[in-house]
């Protein structure tokens, strides 16, 4: 089925518009409100809305701009023929006219039926039209705003036809039969009976009950086994205890007999032990007596030995002492000689030192005298200079105190006065009387011939008697001022001269010259005076005097001191000889001092030697004294002991006796001990203990065994209501039965689980195989947009195409719902195209598909790749018609392009 052309009249904005469609690709562009959607709607209504329909659905079609009922004329190909369908929407008066290619004309009801037949769909009229109309061919008419609807909404009504075609496409895939559904349902029910949704066993199922029964049976079995084992244990206990009792009763008398024997032996041991103690005591006494005597004897021998040693040592000590005494005397003599030598050295040293001191004092006194002489000479010179200084200073004092500056100032004042005077003269009128024959009187003063007078003020010049001239010098007030300045300058100069008591400038200059001669003179004398010491000179001289005095005093004192001694020292005449003598005496002094030190050392050495000899003598004396004392002590000690223990012979005898007695006692003890050892007393005690322990242990064991017997017998005495062994058999049988039952149920549950899983997976596989051609077509379209790795998965159910999933390059799949608005539009378009392609088989391989601004959310780049998809659909035989407000976006589609111009009066078609 293919649309050829559409003409609309009096339909909303359109007065009369015809659009001719391309067989494959048509692009209809137009701005908003240019009537694109109206064309889409008009074509749809021409096909599916009965012409006689009234109500709001019709009134919406009526134009407010153009009078007349809405008319639509649609040309199309279907069933191998061309048709022209003309609908006049005039409510009850509406009419339909279908003209076949062959010229046959069908009208109204007949025409509507034919259209429905050609479209293999119903046509709608009446009240339900408004709600049903949008659902018709909604997979081909992509209404504005519905382009991203879930494919299920527009595929449900085509499910039958679709599955029919899909089965034709696929040889292997077949739709499940009702029988399949029933059995699968039955298995699912069985599974539900056994398992929860999470795959766990439901409670109260036969399996669960069997398990509970098995658990119960196992618990009963464990209990029965425990009872039976308790009984067996009791029997074992009883047997063991009985055997124990018999054994103990057999052994006990033997043990008692053994103990009695051991006790008898122990008593013998006790008697022997008492005897042993006595013997030990006797032996100890004999031994101690022998040891005491041996000790004394030894002591005496030791003392005698010591005495002999001491005596032997005494004689050489005496000889040594005598030698030491002689050495001591010699040393003492040595000391005396050394002392004498020392005394002499000291005396000589003293003499030289006095001489040396005097000579040194003399040197100092002479040096001081020289210094004093020098200072006195300088002092006289200074006094002379001072006198000169006084003279010059008095000359200066008589001159006025004028300096070069003062002179200069005076000169400036004088120059100012001269200038002032000159200025005055320049301004004044000079009157000079050259010759006069009459008197000329100027300002009352007559003016002599040749006299020139200067008038600085107006003056009356009287010539003769009758002539009176008033001379008026120029300059006015300035003249007065000049005159005043002359006066001022003169005053200033006079005042200054007066202050300095000067007559005039010449005088001043001569004064200054005098001063300038005297002042350097003064300065020179002053400098020389200062160089000689100035004011400090008096102090210097006084100090030199006092030092000279004290040096002379010192020399005198030393001379006095020397004169008191035997020798009289001579005094040196001058400084150089004095210094020479000092140097000589210094040498002498040094050698005298060295002689004194050496004499002193010899004395000390002699003294040390003497001390050493004395100490040796004292030591030897002490030594011999001590030895002598110890000889005396030893003799006393030996004597005392011999008095107590006899002399050496009697001691020898006594010792022999004591030794014999000890040997005897020892022999007796050894014999006694051997007897005792033969009895093995330690073992005997241990035996007694051992037997007692063994008897006690066996008695305890006997009691325990008897108790055990009683207890076991008690446990074995049953009330006879049940037979534990029979109970155990029952429990075992029940457990086996329950186990069998449980395993059988378990196997059945597993079998049902297996079946259920197989049904589920197999059903998916079959379903998938069935819809695979559809999925492949969708994938083909999607790959145009999203690339080669893209794949679509769908399921076909009663609700239509469902569970649409998009897989890209092995990434996890996206469900349709999770896609973005743009992707939804594109994926939905791919589904529509795939659907149309499959369904087109019923319409000679072609169906129109109209997209009304269907890619509003897609970006321009995506729209470019989208055109590839649309082109693929057209290539595969579909008639693709795009309505868009942005036709420029679709230039790459290569479609026949039609542009609508927005005009209120009429819309016109413009061919590019």
């Amino acid at each position, binding site marked *: 089925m293919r649309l050829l052309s559409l003409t609309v009249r009096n339909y909303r904005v359109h007065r009369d518009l015809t659009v001719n469609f391309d067989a494959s690709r048509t692009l209809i562009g137009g701005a908003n409100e240019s009537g694109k959607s109206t064309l889409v709607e008009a074509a749809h209504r021409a096909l599916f809305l009965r012409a006689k329909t009234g109500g709001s659905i019709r009134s919406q079609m009526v134009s407010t701009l153009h009078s007349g009922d809405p008319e639509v004329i649609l040309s199309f190909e279907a069933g191998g023929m061309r048709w022209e369908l003309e609908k006049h929407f005039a409510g009850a008066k509406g009419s339909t006219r279908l003209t076949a290619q062959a010229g046959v004309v069908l009208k109204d009801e007949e025409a509507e039926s034919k259209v429905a037949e050609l479209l293999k769909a119903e046509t709608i009229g009446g009240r339900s039209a408004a709600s049903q109309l949008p659902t018709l061919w909604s997979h081909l008419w992509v209404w504005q705003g519905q382009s991203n609807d879930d494919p299920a909404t527009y595929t449900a009504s085509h499910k039958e036809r679709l599955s029919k075609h899909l089965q034709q496409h696929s040889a292997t895939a077949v739709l499940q*039969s009702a029988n399949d559904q029933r059995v699968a349902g039955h298995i699912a029910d069985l599974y539900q009976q056994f398992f929860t949704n999470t795959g766990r066993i439901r409670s109260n199922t036969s399996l669960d009950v069997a398990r509970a029964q098995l658990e119960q049976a196992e618990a009963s079995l464990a209990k029965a086994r425990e009872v039976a084992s308790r009984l067996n244990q009791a029997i074992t206990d009883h047997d063991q205890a009985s055997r124990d009792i018999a054994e103990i009763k057999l052994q006990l008398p033997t043990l008692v007999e053994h103990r009695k024997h051991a006790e008898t032996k122990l008593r013998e041991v006790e008697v022997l032990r008492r005897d042993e103690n006595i013997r030990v005591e006797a032996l100890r006494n004999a031994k101690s007596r022998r040891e005491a005597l041996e000790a004394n004897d030894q002591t005496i021998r030791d003392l005698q030995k010591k005495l002999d040693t001491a005596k032997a040592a005494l004689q050489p000590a005496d000889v040594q002492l005598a030698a030491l005494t002689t050495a001591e005397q010699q040393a003492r003599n040595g000391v005396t000689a050394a002392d004498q030598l020392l005394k002499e050295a000291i005396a000589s040293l003293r003499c030289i030192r006095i001489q040396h001191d005097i000579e040194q004092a003399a040197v100092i006194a002479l040096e001081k005298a020289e210094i004093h002489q020098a200072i006195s000479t300088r002092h006289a010179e200074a006094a002379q200079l001072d006198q000169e200084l006084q003279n010059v200073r008095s000359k200066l004092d008589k001159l006025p105190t004028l300096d070069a500056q003062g002179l200069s100032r005076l000169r400036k004042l004088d120059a100012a006065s001269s200038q002032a005077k000159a200025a005055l003269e320049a301004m004044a009128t000079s009157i000079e009387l050259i010759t006069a024959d009459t008197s000329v009187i100027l300002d009352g003063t007559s003016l002599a011939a040749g006299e020139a007078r200067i008038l600085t003020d107006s003056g009356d010049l009287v010539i003769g008697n009758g002539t009176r001239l008033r001379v008026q010098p120029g300059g006015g007030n300035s003249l007065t001022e000049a005159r005043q300045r002359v006066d001022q300058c003169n005053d200033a100069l006079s005042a200054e001269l007066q202050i300095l008591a000067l007559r005039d400038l010449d005088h001043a200059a001569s004064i200054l010259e005098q001063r300038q001669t005297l002042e350097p003179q003064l300065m020179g004398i002053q400098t020389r005076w200062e160089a000689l010491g100035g004011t400090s000179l008096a102090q210097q001289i006084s100090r030199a005097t006092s030092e000279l005095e004290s040096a002379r005093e010192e020399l005198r004192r030393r001379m006095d001191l020397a004169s008191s001694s035997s020798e009289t020292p001579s005094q040196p005449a001058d400084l150089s000889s004095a210094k020479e003598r000092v140097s000589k005496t210094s040498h002498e002094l040094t050698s005298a001092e060295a002689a004194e030190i050496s004499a002193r050392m010899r004395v000390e050495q002699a003294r040390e030697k003497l001390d050493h000899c004395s100490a040796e003598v004292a030591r030897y004396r002490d030594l011999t004294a001590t030895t002598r004392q110890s000889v005396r002590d030893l003799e006393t000690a030996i004597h005392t002991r011999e008095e107590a223990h006899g002399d050496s012979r009697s001691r020898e005898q006594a010792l022999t006796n004591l030794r014999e007695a000890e040997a005897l006692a020892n022999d007796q003890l050894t014999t006694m001990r051997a007897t005792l050892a033969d009895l093995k007393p330690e073992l005997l005690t241990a035996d007694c203990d051992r037997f007692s322990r063994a008897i006690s242990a066996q008695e305890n064991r006997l009691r325990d065994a008897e108790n055990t017997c009683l207890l076991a017998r008690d446990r074995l005495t049953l009330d006879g209501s049940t*037979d534990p062994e*029979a109970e155990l058999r029952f429990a075992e049988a029940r457990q086996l039965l329950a186990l069998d039952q449980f395993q059988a149920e378990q196997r059945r549950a597993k079998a049902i689980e297996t079946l259920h899983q197989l049904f589920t997976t197999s059903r998916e596989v079959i379903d998938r195989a069935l819809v695979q051609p559809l999925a492949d077509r969708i994938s083909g379209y999607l790959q145009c947009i999203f690339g080669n790795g893209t794949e679509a998965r769908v399921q076909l159910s009663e609700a239509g195409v469902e569970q649409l999933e998009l897989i890209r390059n092995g990434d996890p799949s996206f469900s349709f719902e999770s896609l973005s608005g743009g992707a939804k539009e594109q994926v939905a378009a791919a589904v529509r195209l795939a659907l149309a392609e499959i369904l087109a088989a019923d319409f000679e391989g072609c169906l129109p598909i109209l997209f009304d601004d269907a890619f509003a959310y897609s970006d321009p780049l995506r729209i470019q790749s989208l055109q590839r998809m649309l082109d693929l659909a057209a290539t595969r035989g579909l008639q693709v018609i795009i309505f868009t407000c942005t036709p420029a976006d679709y230039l790459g589609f290569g479609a026949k392009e039609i542009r609508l111009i927005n005009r209120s009066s009429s819309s016109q078609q413009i061919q590019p």
Partner: protein
Amino acid sequence: MVTARFLHTADWQLGRPFASVGDESKRHRLQQERLRVIERIGKIAKESAVDFILVAGDLFDSPHVTKATVSAACGAIGEINIPVIIIPGNHDHGGPGSIWQQDFFLREQQQLAPNLRIILNPEPVVLEKAVIFPAPLLRRHETTNPVSWIRESLLTRSFPPDLPRIVLAHGTIQGFSAENDDEQSGPSVANWIDLTSLPLDEMDYLALGDWHGTKQVGAKAWYSGTPEMDRFPKGDGNDPGNLLKVAISRGQSPQVEKIPVSGFIWKEFTFHFSEDSSLDRFAEQIDAFIGSSSNTQLLKLRLQGALGIAASARLEQILESWESRLVRLKLDFQVTIAPTQEEITHLTCNPSDPLISTVASQLVIRAEGNSDEAAIARIALRELHAALLDT
């Protein structure tokens, strides 16, 4: 010449629980039958005018049987009115706390069965017509030879020379073991009666118990077997359900007569299914094998081979009937239940039911072999088959 006439029996095992029998009334009947055989023994004893009855151990099934069993046993024995001489066996051994020492038993014995004599000591018992050399078991597993005392006793004591001498013992002799004959217990070397230790020439008869089949084990030595069958017989030589009527004189060979007394019959039957149609043959053969008296029979049925799903469902029905009719049906079921080729084709090759075919095909592959998975797959196939029939 004194001739002693007596019945030799053993292994009555009164109070045996028959725990593996699920149905309580059938279990009760099996237990009751063990008491009823005492009546039959008493009848034979009276008819044969025997001097006494020897029970060679295991009168009771356990050393702790219930009071009810004790009373029933004493009541039945008392009815016989002929001396019944017994020794404890391994099941009812005379150890501490055993039934023989319980006050209740002693009271019941005194009141109901004064003719019952229990020998608990290994000492000769001189009766009017014979001397008994008993070997009572005083513990379940006696590790020493219980008859070893007899030779010495002959040396130290003198016995009436004309009285025949009977050894009364319970246990195994070399060569075969009673324990192996037991359904539950494992093998054991305990309770071994060493016949070589006996002065056989001095003895006239050995009355043995423990082995449940009747068996002669020497010129003078017999196992009487149990009078009432209590298990499926093992092997061809096993012959339970009898008692022995014996007549002996000193120095003479014993005259022994085997008398069958068992009430219930324990049988074995094996069948191999080669194809589904053999099911009909099986039904016919089992009918013939059991006959009419199914309510006194116990059957051990061993089934082998393979059956299809539909046939196995039919087999189940047949077995259900027999399980109900027989006193016990012990089933050794080794039949592989797997769909037949026809069933496989029906399940897997139906193009109109693609889903079922797919599932069934996968199950058929899994069902191959002996693994658990295969077994489960076979069950799943049966379920699928059933579901297909049901819906």
